[in-house]
């Protein structure tokens, strides 16, 4: 990297918490967020558990300074809450810097669009047309940018489940290459019938609580939420005297080029992403203190990811775990939610537990951490996010 990039603020809203500390408290107490959907109107309500954010849209609206007459998608409500937290938490006066926003989402305002479509489908002259104006991926970004007064460079990325890891990557490069001084980066996705049914047709949802990296794993649990981190340059650090959480040390994106939805058995894309990030960070594999794996709990992902991990880290990889049994798989928000957890792992010396694990996958024989540990020396955390279209991303955060 040309110039260093640091993390100066965190914001998160997920099934296990409204703020970072609440999420940590629930993790320590092994309280996960996977249960029957509270607000999603679906016939699968009682048969497919999800990790929903336990607030209605009205309750989310009440947490924000919003125009009462305006329509907001659930995706943008979640995004605004987390982004505003990251901004205010950083303590930076962004008006004196070139500050922007890179947000990610997989389905944007689809929560409103699908409701509109119920009426529109039979008659194209029907349906409240305002509901469609929140559909496109850029809408939630523009709304978050308005709230956070980010004016400099505003962008949206959508690469399925690696989206917000990629948002953090792009924002870091914009700062490193001198195009921006500070950037809010992250992602948001709300639960929708579209994605729930989509994943259900692929038969990769677990009807029970997911078991990442376990021999008996059965699929993933969908979740929703949002997370953003405030990224800053050294110049902002010097001129603002702010507290730093971590440094963005390395990252990489690679394509598996194997199948639209499945990962290659040898985990080629995963391997290239992890190796690329480690090389960029100038680290040796054994210097990684903890890995937050993508670990969705599907037969395919966990095996593929595990094979790739062994290729890089050998028979005894560093402590690793999937936090998706807590938060669910939050699609476009996953990379950012796990980035926040990774940064907290550094600042608090944490290794997270991987719930529901009892037996390693026979083909790889590696076991994740199963207990919560704190106060460790966690210097470098590697976080994976892998998406459809073979999109594989790895981020590395380091202690400052």
């Amino acid at each position, binding site marked *: 990297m040309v110039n260093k990039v640091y993390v100066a603020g965190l914001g998160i809203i997920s099934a296990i918490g409204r703020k970072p500390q609440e999420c940590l408290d629930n993790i320590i107490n092994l309280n996960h967020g996977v249960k029957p959907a509270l607000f999603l109107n679906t016939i699968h309500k009682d048969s497919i558990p999800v990790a929903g954010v336990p607030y209605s849209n009205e309750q989310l609206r009440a947490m924000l300074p919003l125009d009462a007459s305006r329509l907001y998608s659930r995706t943008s409500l979640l995004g605004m809450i987390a982004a505003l937290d990251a901004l205010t938490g950083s303590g930076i006066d962004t008006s004196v810097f070139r500050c922007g926003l890179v947000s990610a989402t997989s389905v944007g305002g689809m929560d409103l669009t*699908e409701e509109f479509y119920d009426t529109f489908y039979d008659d194209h002259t029907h349906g409240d047309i305002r509901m469609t104006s929140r559909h496109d991926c850029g809408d939630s970004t523009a709304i978050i940018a308005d709230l956070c007064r980010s004016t400099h460079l505003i962008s949206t990325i959508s690469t399925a489940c690696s989206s917000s890891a990629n948002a953090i990557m792009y924002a870091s490069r914009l700062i490193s290459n001198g195009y921006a001084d500070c950037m809010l980066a992250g992602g948001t996705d709300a639960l929708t019938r579209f994605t729930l049914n989509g994943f259900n047709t692929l038969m990769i949802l677990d009807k029970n609580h997911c078991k990442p990296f376990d021999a008996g794993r059965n699929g993933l649990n969908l979740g929703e939420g949002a997370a953003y981190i405030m990224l800053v340059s050294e110049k902002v650090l010097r001129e603002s005297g702010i507290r730093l959480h971590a440094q963005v040390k390395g990252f990489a994106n690679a394509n598996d080029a194997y199948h639209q939805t499945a990962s290659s058995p040898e985990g080629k894309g995963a391997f290239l992403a992890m190796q690329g990030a480690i090389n960029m960070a100038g680290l040796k594999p054994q210097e990684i203190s903890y890995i937050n794996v993508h670990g969705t709990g599907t037969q395919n992902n966990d095996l593929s990811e595990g094979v790739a991990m062994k290729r890089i880290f050998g028979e005894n990889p560093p402590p690793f775990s999937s936090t998706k049994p807590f938060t669910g798989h939050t699609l476009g928000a996953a990379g950012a939610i796990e980035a926040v957890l990774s940064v907290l792992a550094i600042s608090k010396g944490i290794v997270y537990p991987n719930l529901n694990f009892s037996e390693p996958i026979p083909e790889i024989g590696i076991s994740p951490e199963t207990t919560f540990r704190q106060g460790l020396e966690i210097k470098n955390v590697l976080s994976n996010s892998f998406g459809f279209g073979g999109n594989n991303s790895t981020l590395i955060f380091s202690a400052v």
Partner: protein
Amino acid sequence: MKAYIKSSSSINPCGVFSSGELPAQIPFSYGDYLKCIEPDYKNYISPTMIRRMGRVVKMGVTAAIQCLKDAGVEQPAAIITGTGLGCIEDTENFLGQIIKNKEQFLPPTSFIQSTHNTIAGQIALLLACNAYNFTYVHRNLSFEHALLDALMKLEEEPGNGILLGGIDEITPASFTIMKRLGLYRKQNEEAGFSDGAVAGEGASFFYLSSDASGAQAAICDVAMLHKLTKKEDFRDFITGFLQRNNLKTDDVSLLLSGINSDKRYAESYECVHENYFSGIPIIPYKMYCGEYFTSSAFATWLAASVIKGQQMPLIPDTIKRQDFKAKHALIYNYFLDDHALILVSEC
């Protein structure tokens, strides 16, 4: 760092084009909007893959294949795309299936193909390309961000070639929605400017390199502005952009303007034309491609073709043709709240 265009391709309402070709006529379409003239995809993609691909994916993949073929390249070092609305047709299909089948027994194909990065993902799959693969989805700035990413990549890794593309499709249902939102209007309803823009679609791709040899043109710079609040900001935006490229408005040989047929936008555009570019040839490029979120990719392709051949496409009246020398082509596009500038110059 300049990005040299080694090759480019475009599928748009005027036809299917390789590097340096120009539209020979204004597009004509019987329907409500300008629709792409599509190639025979069998010449580019295997029947098994075609079967599963939505229309926008076929257009994007084909334009990408043509572009790489022209450049004589098998594997780019990065694949970066921009799309404002992604794979609408597959999204609509899956939504419709959910409703019709009441969330039961749904076929997965449309869902699988609906993610925004399907186009970039399918290109990688076809090429067995493990390289960096990103998709930007920010409305009118989707292509601009893909381009900025590509420019940064060339700075970070000079010597590597990048495949860059901008793709969007239009469907009858999405057109109806945009029309009801007041953004689009039917193209054959009335001539001239009125409420709503004539809609279009297209896929345009570029193979970029930091090496100028054999290149058709250079993309020098890109700038974006969100939510203009003060007139002075706009002046700074245009003059600042030109200044950092060592240019004044007089140095612009040609303006590719995103003026569309919406009279509310036309007013703003005409102000810009008059205040900054009076006396400079202007191509209202959306008359070829229609209004859509990645139309600036089409404009970039058109600019590169004009510069390569030093020839203008067929435009009635507005441009003087004798002593025309295309050295610097400036693209200015504005839709919803976003303004963008792209500078394409001779090598």
